[in-house]
């Protein structure tokens, strides 16, 4: 992480690491089943999605659902409902698979048109003593496809270090005060 902020919060500035905001922004682009994980409708939809492919069964296993085929069939036939713990595991497995499946589409959305322009809201300095404040404006810049490709892959594998490295590279384009945008209050884009 680029780091002239040394110790963010020392003078009461508030912000989150840019990499976290970037990951959250990518996360916001993922859509899927909206029915809650503890309703019959939500459970049925998740099961249907997870049992439609081999990758789905792999996701079920990764999420730690160890049930007999007999139980799984009973769930699918809606004769029985999974217990609370398994409902949560099903939800986790569903979103895990969903992220993997939409990653390619996210990359396409972010990289067509030569990248996507993002708006960076600087850290919140309202509670900082005026003499310690930095002069920071809202900035916009276009993040290029090569950065998006790496960022989406890193987001998919929860690789915070790579995401951080990508963010450092991205903010280099902001010019001499890029360092001040290592932490941000929010970022947003349209893709």
């Amino acid at each position, binding site marked *: 992480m680029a780091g002239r902020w040394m110790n963010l919060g020392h003078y009461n500035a508030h912000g989150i690491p840019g990499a976290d905001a970037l990951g959250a922004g990518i996360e916001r682009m993922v859509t899927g089943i909206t029915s809650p994980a503890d309703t019959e409708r939500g459970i049925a939809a998740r099961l249907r999605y997870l049992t439609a492919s081999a990758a789905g069964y792999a996701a079920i296993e990764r999420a730690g659902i160890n049930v007999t085929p007999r139980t799984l069939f009973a769930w699918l036939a809606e004769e029985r409902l999974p217990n609370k713990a398994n409902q949560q595991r099903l939800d986790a497995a569903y979103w895990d698979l969903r992220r993997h499946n939409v990653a390619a589409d996210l990359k396409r959305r972010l990289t067509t048109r030569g990248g996507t322009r993002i708006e960076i809201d600087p850290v919140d300095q309202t509670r900082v003593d005026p003499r310690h404040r930095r002069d920071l404006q809202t900035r916009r810049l276009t993040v290029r496809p090569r950065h998006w490709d790496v960022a989406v892959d890193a987001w998919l594998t929860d690789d915070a270090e790579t995401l951080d490295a990508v963010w450092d590279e991205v903010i280099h384009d902001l010019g001499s005060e890029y360092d001040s945008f290592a932490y941000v*209050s*929010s970022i947003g*884009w349209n893709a």
Partner: protein
Amino acid sequence: MYPVAMSGELGADGVAALLAEAKLAAAFDDPAERVRLRKAAGLSLEQVAKAVGVGRQTVANWEAGGMPSSPSRGKYLRLLEGLAQIHPAPAPAQEPHTAVQPQPAPGAPQVQAAQAPAAESPVAREARAGHARHQNRRRTTSTEQVHAELREKIAAAVDQELTRAGGDADAAAGALVKQAIPDVMALFARTRAQARYEHTAYPALPDILRKPSKSDPDLIWEARPSWRHPGFRRHPDGEVGVTALDVNAAYLSALKTWLPIGKLTHTVGGEHDRKRAGVHLITPPVWEHADLPSPLGDREEAGPVWVTEPTLRLLLRLAGPKHRLVEAPVIHESWTSNATETFLDSLRQVLAAARADALAAGDEVTNTYVKAMYSKFVSTLGESSHNRDIARPDWMHLIRSQAFANLWGRAHKAHQAGLGVMCALGTDELHLAGDWRQTWAEGRGLAEMKVKTDRDGQPVTYTVTAVGGGR
């Protein structure tokens, strides 16, 4: 007598005067020379314009080239003549010219030198023309130009869809409604180009503006009214006739509201700052007027609530010396930013003009398109997956509350005009007893009111009767 003498004088001296003016005009034919003389004398455009009796821009035009004959031109030329005597033209600037080119035959540079001040070389002329074109292109566009451009854009989109649908109005309207969100965002971006303030499209939001989940609302109270007069009830043989009215394009009018430009910042307590806007945590005053809906809408809870700028401003106005209808609300906390009331006004004017034209021409396709544009603009301003161009849930709340505050304003106006307010519902519905046409014109314009119609197209009217001892 006098006019005759005048014309006689003109007849004799007029020719001479005209000749003299033409001579002067020829002498000061070079626009650069006119500029040089004025600057040599240290005069500003305004000073010259005032002395000659024309506008500043006219003098600027004269100095830029064109000098059509006009009564003031003679004065201007005489001024130049006088200035030329004080500041004679410097010896033509061939010295450096000849100095750097001593090699050619001695006759050649002298011929060139003699012609130089009069004739510009073709290359230099081309450069001048290019400069002029560049300046023209750089000139900022006026609001009128932008409005005209956007009106054409709307008309072009309608034409294109009508052509594509082969003249089928319903199909064209359907296609236009589908593309309304990107289209209105493009219009909005165009109206904001070169604007004074740059807004933040994806600000960090305070927790009160975050929805706990996709389907759950955030904490902001928009003050939506849903009010029926408690003193009356609907009765087929009632003594009071009521007409149900609709406000036209309520959300379009509500685009004119105080909107926060940047990220909202937190303040605690204190006075209301008129130059800022946002959401406020207030303890609302008690509403004690049975004949009018509460400006806080159909709120069933008492106690503190997060309200938006339009609601707070309405409450403060009603608490002010002009009305004295309520106690002033107590402001505990605020999330605000610097604000302007004209932020969406350009967009509103463009859409309102397109709507008015469409109504006058009976063009339902354009009308449907415009309606889809402003209503979807408002409904997708927040965190909508249909519109990722902007994420300002605060604006969405403020615009909606403005529409409700506007409806309350109309109810109040009706009440003051002696009409009975029977019902105020949702965004745009107002049921009135009495001759409302004295107060509003009937029609579909923004300032007019429209009679509500039922499914069969019949106007909605009914009668009510007073309940018990009420009223």
